[in-house]
């Protein structure tokens, strides 16, 4: 039984301006995906291919028009209150835009206390050491707990969001371009942290990105999306050789490792 699975989910959004002439744009077309415990799945695609919508459906932020999402085999719509709490605790998400993902008037302490209080039911005295521990894990200082989001850099705030996702000790974290705004050495530091947690606690990840290099480094299995469909599924090898046209286009667009070569040699051959 998969930890989390989407079963032929479809989703359309209404577009069009003003009154009348509304039309539905289909962004997901019968997409199926499953994530097993302790697994890192890469979800790769260009902007606008539907990968973020799929991520939002998987964590229950939106409901599919057709198809269903199952948590440990049970459709999300049929979860009891206790099961829903377990789902919320087990599946966390980190968004690309960290500033938009936090309340600008809450301190870092309050941001991190929320999941500890509501999902783990920790008392106030238990929360303080937990907050300090979470901050240290993502490379911040316990004294950063007093800061407001506006007082931190984008990279620091994204690490607060990652700490918030780690707080309820989840089984799966959906990372929606969660490291793409960070400096490269911070990206790698975060990926190393994720990998360490996966080994230590069996945490699983759905890693949503357009950057094939990050999938290659971090994921064990990859799904390539194009125009609302999954067009390829493959085990990740190094270098990652994709067969679908969408996958190959993303591979060809990877920037060179060293000056002189306009394309990565391994890709030019593939």
């Amino acid at each position: 039984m998969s930890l989390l699975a989407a079963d032929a989910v479809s989703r359309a959004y209404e577009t069009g301006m003003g009154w009348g002439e509304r039309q539905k744009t289909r962004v997901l077309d019968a997409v199926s995906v499953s994530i097993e415990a302790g697994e890192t799945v890469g979800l790769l695609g260009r902007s606008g291919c539907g990968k973020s919508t799929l991520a939002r459906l998987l964590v229950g932020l939106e409901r599919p028009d057709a198809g269903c999402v199952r948590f440990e085999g049970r459709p999300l719509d049929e979860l009891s209150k206790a099961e829903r709490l377990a789902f919320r605790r087990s599946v966390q998400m980190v968004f690309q835009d960290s500033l938009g993902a936090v309340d600008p008037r809450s301190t870092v302490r309050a941001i991190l206390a929320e999941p500890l209080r509501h999902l783990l039911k920790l008392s106030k005295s238990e929360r303080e050491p937990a907050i300090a521990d979470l901050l240290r894990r993502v490379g911040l200082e316990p004294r950063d707990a007093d800061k407001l989001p506006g007082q931190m850099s984008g990279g620091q705030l994204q690490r607060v969001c990652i700490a918030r996702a780690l707080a309820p000790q989840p089984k799966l974290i959906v990372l929606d371009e969660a490291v793409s705004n960070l400096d490269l050495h911070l990206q790698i530091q975060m990926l190393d942290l994720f990998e360490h947690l996966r080994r230590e606690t069996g945490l699983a990840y759905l890693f949503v990105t357009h950057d094939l290099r990050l999938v290659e480094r971090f994921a064990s299995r990859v799904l390539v999306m194009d125009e609302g469909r999954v067009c390829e599924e493959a085990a990740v090898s190094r270098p990652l050789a994709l067969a679908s046209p969408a996958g190959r286009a993303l591979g060809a667009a990877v920037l060179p490792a060293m000056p002189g070569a306009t394309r990565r040699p391994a890709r030019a051959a593939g």
Partner: protein
Amino acid sequence: MTARRLDIANLTVRARGGARAPLVAGIDLSLSSGEVLALVGASGSGKSMTCAGALDVLPPGTWRETGTLLVDGEPCQPKTVRGRKVATILQAPRSAFNPVLTMRRHAEETLKALGFPKPRWDAIIASAMADAGLGEPDRILALHPFEMSGGMLQRMMIALALMSEAPFLFADEPTTDLDLIVQSEILDCLDRLRKERGLGILLVTHDMGVVARLADRVAVMEAGRIVETGGIDRMFHEPAHPVTRRLVDAHLSLYAPDVAP
């Protein structure tokens, strides 16, 4: 006569708040036409402040303490240089456009500010858009920002920069936030402009892949200072300063071992 060389000499930028170290501390940079100089460093190292300080468009609360801008060796007032000798393109093109104006209105505003005579406008717009890789100019000129993709907006921003016929371009993280395919199209476009128009480009980025693709020389910044400058090959193969080494190592660790040295 088109300018061939731009120098930023002894630029220091400070933030209000007294004793704190300057944001940019005595920087010297020179840029020749047809050359791409990459300015790299961690976020907060002062890359964008260097561009803003040189052109005197610093955000409130910061000011230029020292610094001279020289065009072909002649000291110039930044306000006579920006938009005329140096055009600028920014990260996040969506927030750089006025959401209620069409692309045509943006182009006309630029041309008016630069004082080009009206009869020349259509020709300048058409040639700038063609050079920025925007086909069907009439269709695109009628669009508002929300009707365009991030890649199209960035091309339009490049087209607006080209309309100034400025010989130099400051490109501040021009491809961050764009997907990799669009990113490589924009970098190809900048590469072509450097070759065909002889544009001298100061490329601000934190992505060493972008540097490897486009740059001729690299200047590495940390805490407001330039810690190392050198040709692209030496910087990748024999980085001397620890900051440069860390940037290159972090970058190469993203690649499978077959392409790393």
